[in-house]
């Protein structure tokens, strides 16, 4: 029998999904670990068995998260440890796996145990493909957000462990919020620009569009590399995965890793001058046009309404 565990932070949707998945795979024997921001009390709803409390972990410090995870797991780690893919997995997942000599995988969609062997399906080639892996007898897995249902979980107060919180990873640290101030995660409308815009000046014109539509300003990897946008604005597998009501992609050809990052959007509208751009295959509405020429007309049309 494979021992299944789950490590989550807080009780957001992705944490509940992973806890539910752990119970589905390991039944009541699933070992659940919770990392909490103080105060701890109201987080009992997550139904985790053990918890530690970290003070002031708003910025998700990797060293403190790793120490907390190691304290929770103790000397006998479960065979399969599930972690929501995202900042927590980024900070501790693989390193924890290495320290307990387990393989690791992330962007995992489905997990199954067949004949005592772990079978996982994950994305590959920038979202162009899906790979099914025979993951052997144990692994640390980053579970893709939204891939599993969050079930009703039993209510039980977790056992809060004594924990000596170590120093943060970086000394003399200073957190800086991006000048862009975009909160893509919560935005209802996202206007994103890519290399097809051709210039920083053209990218800046999107700011006005975002303001008009009451949305946030996103970017493709190319636009970030060009320095037109800041890294926190990047949408994609390795940037932010977003799920707004409306995603307006302008001058983005649609590299698969970008498409994966925005695939959760409700309505996707694409503007690109290349009528063969793959973005159109991922869009609900497509406009084949040069943005610089279209924009003055669009501004007029929006104002005229």
């Amino acid at each position, binding site marked *: 029998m494979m021992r299944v565990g789950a490590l989550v932070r807080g009780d957001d949707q992705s944490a509940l999904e992973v806890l539910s998945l752990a119970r589905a795979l390991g039944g009541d024997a699933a070992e659940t670990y919770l990392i909490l921001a103080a105060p701890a009390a109201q987080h009992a709803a997550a139904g985790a068995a053990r918890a530690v409390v970290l003070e002031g972990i708003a910025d998700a410090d990797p060293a403190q998260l790793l120490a907390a995870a190691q304290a929770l797991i103790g000397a006998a780690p479960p065979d399969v440890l599930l972690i929501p893919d995202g900042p927590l997995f980024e900070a501790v997942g693989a390193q924890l796996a290495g320290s307990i000599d387990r393989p690791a995988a992330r962007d995992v969609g489905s997990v199954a145990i067949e004949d005592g062997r772990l079978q996982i399906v994950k994305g590959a080639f920038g979202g162009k493909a899906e790979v099914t892996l025979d993951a052997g007898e144990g692994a640390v897995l980053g579970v893709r957000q939204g891939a599993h249902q969050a079930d009703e979980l039993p209510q039980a107060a977790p056992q809060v462990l004594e924990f000596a919180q170590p120093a943060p990873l970086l000394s003399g640290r200073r957190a800086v919020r991006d000048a862009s101030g975009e909160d893509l995660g919560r935005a209802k409308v996202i206007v994103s620009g890519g*290399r*097809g815009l*051709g*210039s*920083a000046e053209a990218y800046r014109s999107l700011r006005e569009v975002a303001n008009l539509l009451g949305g946030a300003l996103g970017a493709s990897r*190319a636009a970030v590399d*060009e320095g037109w946008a800041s890294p926190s604005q990047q949408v994609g597998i390795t940037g932010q995965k977003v799920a707004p009501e409306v995603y307006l992609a302008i001058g983005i*050809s*649609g590299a698969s890793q970008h498409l994966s990052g925005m695939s959760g959007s409700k309505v996707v509208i694409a503007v690109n*001058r*290349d*009528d*063969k*751009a*793959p973005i159109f295959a991922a869009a609900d509405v497509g406009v084949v046009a*040069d943005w*610089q*020429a279209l924009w003055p007309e669009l501004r007029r049309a929006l104002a005229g309404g």
Partner: protein
Amino acid sequence: MTPHRVVYWNIPGHAWMYLPFAILVIVFGYGVYRRYRVWSIGQRRPLGPLRPRLGRLLRHAGLQSRVVKRRMQGYAHVALAVAFGLLFIGTLVVMLNSDFGLPVMQGAFYLWFESFTLDVAGLAGIIALCVFLWRRYGLKPKGLSRQWPDFFVPFSLLVILITGFMLQSLRIYATHDPWGGYSFVGYALASLWGALHLGIPAALVIHRSLWWFHLLLAFSFLAAIPYSKLFHLFTGPLAIFLSEPTRASGLDSPNLETAERLGANFLSDLTVKDLVDLDACTECGRCQDVCPAFASGKPLSPKQLILDLREHAHTRPSEPLQLAIKDETLFACTTCRACQEACPVDIEHVPKIVAMRRFRAMEEGEIPAGLAEAVQGIEERGHPFRGSQASRTTWMDGLGIHEWEPGTPCDTLLWVGCAGAFDPRAQKAARALANLLLSMGEDVQVLGRRESCTGDPARRAGQEYLYQIQAQQNVELLQQVAPRRIVTMCPHCLQQIKNEYRDFGADFEVVHHSEYLSTALITGRISRAAGGKRVTYHDPCYLGRYNGVIDAPREVLAGAGMDLTEMPRHGTDSFCCGAGGGWAFREEGAPRVNRLRAKEAVDTGAEVVATACPFCLNMMSDGVRAEGGAEVQDIAEILWEQVSSTLVKD
């Protein structure tokens, strides 16, 4: 009595003039030596066949065919050159007569040449100089500077000519020269002295002092030649003689494995021709007037580039060229060669710029953003269009054109080029061209997946190493394909495969699609159409200036039934669209070159702007749209539209 005049009349002790003459010879000789010393450190290149070089020398230096392209100052220059040529011969005649004792200064020759003709020459010279001074200081054109040597040179020439006439008139006046009327200017002035009642003794004194003044001024002037832009008297013809007569490439293909330095960062890395060019510049500013980079406010003036290099060569010849030429200047050039086309003494600006770019790109890894990505794209993917979602064969989906397979023969090979394959706008032009070729029943094939960038953007960016790799691979592949002829859609590909690949063993029959289509129209393999719109045609630099293909695209437009209106600048005088030299891949600040050219096109009132290059097609499309103008199409698209609509009607 035989008509004559007494040589050195009223000048006792004239033999003293050999003292300043000796000084003149020494100063002149030293000046030439100083210049020569700089030239001699340049790289030597074989001259090749002399005939084309001599032909060009005759046209450009002898007949000054480029100088007279600007009518007023051009003919003034010819007048001045001929005048001083004649006056120089006149002086030699005096020398023959007095120093060699040959009695040539007499009779009809004396009257008609030595007197009459030289007076005409002197008068023409004065008029020409007045034109020059009036243009520089009255009209104040932007291309001309107004510093003291700019004034001093024509002014002293003017003084030399005027004092010459004064001397002549005083002699006629004092000697009552019976043949004075042949020297009509001097004669007229002499009668003025008469009217002023100038005393003979006074006239003699004035004559004598003026003679020495005239002589010393003329000698000083001659001595100053190698130290001023007047040196173009010698360096101009030399630069013309040394210039690339076929214009095939203009760029050399150095062996990079053995090169001591990649590209040029010292005078000694440039060629002898490059260094002679620096001393041949007359600062006429014609290159600057036609330069798209200068016109769009970029930090490049081809004239200033040459002057800065000249200054560098004369003041700090062993220092790196980077001190003289900044990167922004170097990479501003579109390599359109308008400057070289305009230069009366065939200065070659572009090879110098590319040589210095080579140093920056290869030794220092400095290539401007955008262009660097394009170059990297060529290296990694075989094409410069980063981010393109097309494959090499997307454009030809459903056309029924064949991809060449190894081991099969090939008659006509259509070399599509990266733009035709990857750029959405150019793909349409490629499809139109393929349709035209297929409609002719041609056995036309493409290389498809096997095609790779010719390397032109890399070469123009200075990344010669990557270029040479691409060139060698392509030449090898084409030799294997061995097509009967190659048709290119892109003038840059044409320039490479036809001309620049010769250094890598290529010898193919290559034509641009405009040439191929115009021949097909003439031979009737494509039927002519009628009832087209008003069109203006933008000459791509690499087609017109580089390859001399001017008429063919116009014949294609005529064959398509279009009604052609020319822009003010066309043919070899065409103005760049702004894409050359790697600018197609760079972000350009305002004002953009393509807008300037687009405005010119829109102002013709044409309904369609035609061109014959995928890069021009894109640049002109963007520009014309911004100027609120017409449709921009490739000549192949226009012809195909016209021909296929005729087919439907039939």
